[in-house]
Every structure is written in structure tokens, then in C-alpha cells.
């Protein structure tokens, strides 16, 4: 007993270090719920903007930034989406640093930086892809690309945090592909992907890891 207790402590310390040094454990479930509601609000705003700008029922077949004034008309939609992204990201930062403080971890660690890099590479590429193709591809493809690139970013960043988030990413990618198959339901699928999936994921993580 007196012989193996320090060894048990060793093992526990090793396990904790392996986990803490390779995974960002402060990611808060609450931030997922907040992101989900922001996503739903964004979807409603987008629906209103789309029906206001381009009334035709087949809007999803035409590019968002169509015609000479295309990019100017596309701008409000981009602004709404950027606002959703920035607010959701800020929520994640606030709730995660709160969770880190509560549990006595540091939020800003080498693995946090690595996670952010692996998140931002697909996300940045996706953002540029969407801006560069908004004038030429059908709107439904643009909507689908936000889901697909975001899903890939989540899968890539998921290697550095809770394993469950991997499945969130996979589901986002699937939602994007479904969006390509059913373009007339783009907005609803988008609301499902960015709204309901996040809320569901956030609730699950919040209840499972209490934070």
C-alpha cells in the first residue's frame, strides 16, 4: 500500500498532463447554446433580407452577388453573417475563460493556440471561397459552403478538444451536402445546422461536463 500509492499518484498525474496538454478542456457547452440561438437569429435575419432584396422564389438558383450591383446588395447579408460569427466567437471566449477560471485551468495554452490555428485555416479558406464565388455560383451553393467549410473547421479543431465535437463537425458537413441536394430548403437547413445542432450540442456538453 505504502509502496504503490505514490505510483498511483504518478499515473494520475501523467494521465492529467497528457489530457490537459493535448486537449482544450475549457470549451464551454454554454457557448454552443449561445452560438445556436445567434445562428437562429441570423437565419431569420437572412430570410428577411433575401425576401427583401431578391423577391423571386428561385433566389437560391441565382448567385447572391448577381449583376453589376451584386456585391453591394450582397453586403447586408455578409454583415449579418459576420456579426453572428463575431458574437458567437466572443461568446465562446467569454464562457470558456469563465469555465477555465472556475476549474482552475488556464485557457490560453499551447493547445489552445493549436486548436485555433486548425479551426481558422478551413474557416478562413471557406470565407474567402464564399466571397470570391458569391457572384458566380447559385445562392444555395454559397449557403451550403458555409456549412461544409464550418463543419470541416470543427472536425479539424476537434482533434484538440472534446471528442464529441468531431460529430458536430460531421453533422454540419452532412447538412451542407443536404443543402446542395435540396436547395429550396437552404435557409431551413442552415438554421438547423447553425442553430439547432449547436443548441443540441451545447446542451449535451453542458449537462455532461457541467460547464
Amino acid at each position, binding site marked *: *500500500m505504502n*509502496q*504503490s500509492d505514490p*505510483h*498511483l499518484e*504518478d*499515473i494520475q*498525474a*501523467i494521465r492529467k*498532463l*497528457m489530457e*490537459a*496538454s*493535448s486537449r482544450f478542456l475549457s470549451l464551454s457547452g454554454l457557448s454552443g447554446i449561445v452560438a445556436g440561438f445567434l445562428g437562429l437569429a441570423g437565419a431569420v435575419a437572412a430570410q428577411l433580407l433575401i425576401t427583401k432584396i431578391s423577391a423571386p422564389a428561385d433566389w437560391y438558383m441565382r448567385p447572391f452577388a448577381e449583376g453589376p450591383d451584386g456585391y453591394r446588395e450582397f453586403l447586408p447579408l455578409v454583415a449579418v453573417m459576420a456579426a453572428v460569427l463575431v458574437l458567437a466567437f466572443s461568446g465562446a471566449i467569454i464562457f470558456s475563460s469563465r469555465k477555465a477560471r472556475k476549474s482552475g485551468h*488556464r485557457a490560453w*495554452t*499551447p*493547445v489552445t493556440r493549436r486548436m485555433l490555428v486548425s479551426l481558422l485555416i478551413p474557416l478562413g479558406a471557406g470565407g474567402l471561397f464564399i466571397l470570391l464565388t458569391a457572384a458566380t455560383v447559385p445562392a444555395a451553393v454559397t449557403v451550403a459552403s458555409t456549412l461544409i467549410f464550418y463543419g470541416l473547421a470543427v472536425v479539424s479543431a476537434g482533434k484538440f478538444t472534446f471528442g464529441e465535437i468531431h460529430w458536430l463537425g460531421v453533422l454540419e458537413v452532412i447538412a451542407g451536402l443536404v443543402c446542395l441536394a435540396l436547395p429550396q430548403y437552404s435557409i431551413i437547413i442552415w438554421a438547423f445546422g447553425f442553430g439547432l445542432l449547436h443548441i443540441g450540442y451545447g446542451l449535451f456538453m453542458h449537462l455532461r461536463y457541467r460547464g
Partner: protein
Amino acid sequence: MKTILANFNKAFESRVRLGIMSVLAVNSSMDFTGLKETLEVTDGNLASHLRALEDAGYIIMEKSFINRKPNTRYTITEAGLDSFNSHLQALEELINKK
């Protein structure tokens, strides 16, 4: 008892060394600052343990410059990973024997 202790590695007797090996076993590489932040130890303490592990051939050090600032990264070697794993196994066997 003897056979279990045979895999017990003297090089990993210190908590800090065990910590360094744990971190490098699951991260492809990590720089000095990252190790310091993760293990919460002082510069001098960390440096001396890193040197000991390097001398044992369990980790390799790589110096480079990032934005003209020196950056020292550490990577676990195959030998390091092997002996760390057998050390872990020895620890576990010892606990299970209890």
C-alpha cells in the same frame, strides 16, 4: 517484484521528467515556453531536467528563430517513447499487483 522493477526507469524518477515525457508523448513537439506553462515549473528546473532527458537520448532539442526570437522545440525520440511506455506499464502492473 524484481521483473516489474526491471522496467522501472531511473531517468523518470522525477515528477518533472515524467511530466515532460507525458506531454511530449501526446504532442508531436512543444517549445520551452509551452512546456513551462503546462508543467508550471521554473526555467532553471525545467532546463536541467530537459538536459538530462536529452542526454539519455529520450528527447531531441531543435533551436530555430521565429521573428528573430530564439525558439527551442522538443520532440520525443522513438527510444524515449518506448521507455516511457514500458515505464508506464511497469507503474500500472505495480498498482494492479497491490
